[in-house]
């Protein structure tokens, strides 16, 4: 590895990259033709091509969001992005058939190992498409469908057509329009009535090429009384030029169903991560977003839940870590659209080395929704003078029968805590690592153990070499 590369990568453990071998690579830049080409290449039905084109036209007209971080958003050069890159001609069912370079990458990321130990299914996406995909036989036998989105569209066009874009229409925002126009990859997951998937299923998204745009599209449908835990991981190499990750994730939890969607995103600091995630929860359904945002240049992401059926419940637990040159603009949105719906939002952020984290939240109770309960807690930890944290909570409460709590706190690491830990033999960096891990613990404990351990290590690494 050259010194220069090392400098860019710094402590980011996943910053390595492979040679850029591709079987199909589109020229940089976006046009209606590019959108049509993607659709044609994938042999899609006409209705999908039409959706894409409509979305593209909307994207062109739609203005940038006027919140978040406008100056960073306006620096995105949409003409300098590769919108489609195929690096393997097939989605393999065995790791042995995946091209060596790519297989090695996923080995380094620990995916095949995790799959053997504790996952019910895995999709590994590399650039624009899935290169590996598998699901345990017993799940398949129970009727669980777990596919990459492209294959999902081919094999189950009627389900995709029925639900695609119903939770997040292309016109929701500029980036949902972009995703709808150029989407590729992502997961399609359907859990039949009453089926409980005990082991988590995972999708891993890896960007490898420079100036790459990754636009995966995920649709999860949990039918009545079913349950599933879906885990998403993402990393990218460290480059000095930007990459764009703009996903759309739609979840539908039917009556009495439960979906937990966990994300451990660990982008390198050249990635724009602009993701729209939204769920619909029907009667007595539960949706849980467990959302960890580490790294990236700018993340704008507000997992949301529409509580549409009576008795539905939403849980959003998120953490954000903003280091040097990073802005995490994250939060949660919950819409109480039915009576007796409940929600809990816990948001924790850490800012360090000039990093900036913002909490942006929306809590809405419609006038007809009676007896709703919600609790919102936002805690920010600021590790030095140069760093920043802001909170932008919005509440729109349509009636007076709801029970709502909101707590917010901003804290610093106290010198008493540091002295205490150091008197127990921990160096200042180790002490910071412990305090930071402790601060994120309410989030970490929700993760599968393997992820929790990894996240703790990661944060400890972030605390190293930066205290002076």
């Amino acid at each position, binding site marked *: 590895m050259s010194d220069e590369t090392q400098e860019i990568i710094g402590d980011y453990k996943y910053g390595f990259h492979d040679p850029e071998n591709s079987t199909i690579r589109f020229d940089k830049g976006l046009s209606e033709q590019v959108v049509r080409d993607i659709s044609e290449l994938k042999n899609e039905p006409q209705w999908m091509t039409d959706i894409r084109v409509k979305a593209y036209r909307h994207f062109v007209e739609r203005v940038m969001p006027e919140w978040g971080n406008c100056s960073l958003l306006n620096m995105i050069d949409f003409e300098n992005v590769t919108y489609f890159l195929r690096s393997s001609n097939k989605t393999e069912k065995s790791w042995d058939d995946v091209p060596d370079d790519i297989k090695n990458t996923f080995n380094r990321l620990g995916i095949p190992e995790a799959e053997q130990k504790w996952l019910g299914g895995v999709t590994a996406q590399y650039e624009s498409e899935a290169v590996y995909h598998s699901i345990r036989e017993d799940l398949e036998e129970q009727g669980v469908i777990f596919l990459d989105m492209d294959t999902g569209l081919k094999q189950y066009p009627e389900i995709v057509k029925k639900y695609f874009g119903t939770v997040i229409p292309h016109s929701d925002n500029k980036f949902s329009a972009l995703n709808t126009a150029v989407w590729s990859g992502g997961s399609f997951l359907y859990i039949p009535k009453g089926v409980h998937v005990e082991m988590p299923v995972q999708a891993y998204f890896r960007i490898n090429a420079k100036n790459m745009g990754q636009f995966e599209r995920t649709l999860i449908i949990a039918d009545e009384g079913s349950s599933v835990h879906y885990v998403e991981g993402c990393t990218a190499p460290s480059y000095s030029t930007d990459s764009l990750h703009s996903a759309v994730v739609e979840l539908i939890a039917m009556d009495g169903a439960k979906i937990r969607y966990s994300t451990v995103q660990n982008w390198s600091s050249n990635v724009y991560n602009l993701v729209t995630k939204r769920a619909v929860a029907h009667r007595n359904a539960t949706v849980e977003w467990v959302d960890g945002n580490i790294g990236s240049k700018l993340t704008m992401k507000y997992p949301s839940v529409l509580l549409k059926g009576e008795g539905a419940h939403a849980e959003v637990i998120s953490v954000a870590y903003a280091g040097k040159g990073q802005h995490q603009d994250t939060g949660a949105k919950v819409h109480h659209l039915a009576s007796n719906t409940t929600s809990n939002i816990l948001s924790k952020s850490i800012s360090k080395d000039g990093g900036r984290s913002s909490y942006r939240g929306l809590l809405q109770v419609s006038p007809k929704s009676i007896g709703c309960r919600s609790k919102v807690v936002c805690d920010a930890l600021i590790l030095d003078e140069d760093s920043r944290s802001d909170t932008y909570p919005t509440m729109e409460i349509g009636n007076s029968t709801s029970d709502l709590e909101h707590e917010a706190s901003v804290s610093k690491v106290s010198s008493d*805590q540091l*002295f205490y830990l*150091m*008197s*127990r*033999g*921990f*160096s200042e960096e180790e002490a910071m690592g*412990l305090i930071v891990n402790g601060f994120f*613990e309410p989030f970490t404990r929700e993760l599968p153990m393997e992820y929790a351990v990894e996240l703790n290590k990661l944060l400890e690494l972030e605390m190293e070499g930066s205290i002076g």
Partner: protein
Amino acid sequence: MRIVADEILRVENLHVSVEGTPIIKGLSLTIHRGEIHAIMGRNGAGKSTLANVVMGHPAYEITSGNIFFKGEPLEDLEVFQRARAGMFLSFQYPAAIPGVQVGTFLKKSVASVRDDPPKGRAFRKELTAAMEKLSMDKSFLSRYVNDGFSGGEKKRLEILQMLLLQPHLALLDETDSGLDIDALRIVAQGINEVAADSACLIITHYQRLLDLVKPHYVHAMIDGTIVRTGGPELALELEDRGYDWLEVTA
């Protein structure tokens, strides 16, 4: 420099300020291995300041004087290096570390402080034995360090750490305060065990701990200096008469 064998702590004519205000004003003290020293004094006399400054708290400025640990000057050692060298402070007010489980914390702490730390099963065995000695329930291990602990629970956790870290110098700052009668006896046993083979400085307001942990020396501290040193009988006298009579002679 001539060092008496087994000298652990030597404080020489120490002056300490906090934010420009002098707190410790010419204090000297030497403790050898196997010795228990008690320091008594009014609120605000500077007892905690002394303990903190020996441990290396960055808020305190040593304006003159020296501190030696096993004959070596301490000034260049950071707090964690002092801990690794064998110094231990039981805090008057232990800080809470939310989200960090006691079990994890103890394991990591022992691993960084002890020269040949017990691992795996050996560590768990030692931990269980120490907790039994202190009548601490296993459930402590999954709680967060000092977070929501009662006053007495905090003090017990401090002593548990002392047992596990096996320091050569133990500074115990009001470890007896907040303890009920049974807990006091249990904690005293723990202190005696460690004190047998190390140097021990006990800061206390009350005779009741000194009934259980017999000091070799008792120091009366007023306004940042030691005004009188005696044997265990001095503690009894202080309990009886207070500190005013010393002020006159000081």
